[in-house]
């Protein structure tokens, strides 16, 4: 299951970097969601404290894939190899999703202009 989850997260990172996916904020803090254009699949990524979550849902909002990894697993050495890679990939995807959902780059550019104009 980890192999598939890691594959999906890496694909989502790639598509997000290419600007092909649109992310928006979810309900909880650090939670972001995206729907594929036809609405048949949805992905949710969340970094909540020390735990990283990744979820894939079908068009009936049923959870198809759910992965949660806590940093303690990594620190204690329980998580290895691909699970560590998945933890880091979710982290990376979450940052990308946040940047897009909150329009971080645009707001930073605006802030620079506003400060320069003072």
């Amino acid at each position, binding site marked *: 299951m980890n192999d598939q989850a890691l594959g999906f997260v890496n694909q989502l990172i790639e598509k997000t970097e290419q600007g092909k996916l649109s992310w*928006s*904020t*979810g*309900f*909880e*803090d650090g*939670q972001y*969601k995206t*729907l594929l*254009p*036809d*609405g048949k699949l*949805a992905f*949710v990524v969340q970094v909540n404290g020390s735990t990283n979550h990744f979820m894939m*849902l079908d*068009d*009936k*909002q049923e959870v198809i894939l759910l992965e949660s990894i806590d940093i303690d697993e990594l620190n204690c050495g329980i998580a290895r190899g691909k699970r560590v890679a998945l933890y880091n990939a979710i982290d990376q995807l979450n940052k990308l999703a946040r940047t897009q959902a909150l329009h971080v780059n645009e707001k930073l550019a605006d802030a620079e202009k506003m400060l320069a104009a003072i």
Partner: protein
Amino acid sequence: MILHDLFDWSNAGVGVTGLGLTLWAVAQATGAKTAAERAENSIRRHNAEVDFDSLARMAKELHGYVEDGRMSEARLRTTDLRSELALAIRQHKVFLGNQLISLKEKQLDLKLVTDGLNRKSNDLSQTERVRLLGITGAILEVLAGQCGELRSEVERGRGYE
């Protein structure tokens, strides 16, 4: 000879009349079928409007509960709204057009809100409370918009087209 010709012509006449009557009967049957389909379509569109009106009322209640900080009621209403919206989308998909994706997005929001509230309905951060108000407001807007769209189509007689 003349009698034989007359017999042939009368036979041909009967044949043409028979064909004409058959074509007329087929046209009548086709017209009746189309009319029945139009009527059925009109009823289904009206049912969709009624269902989305009910959903919009539920969403308004949910938004009110969130505004008043009545989180346990909000949690129950979210669960109801989620299941009813899923049913309405499945039943009335054909009438939803471009709004389908927007409704699916709201369905996903409701799923995330349900999960979130089930985990910690009394322990929301300030940002989550503000976000919840925004989400329920947006759900209400989309559902009321969809209901209005269906109502105006029913009033314009789109079901009869």
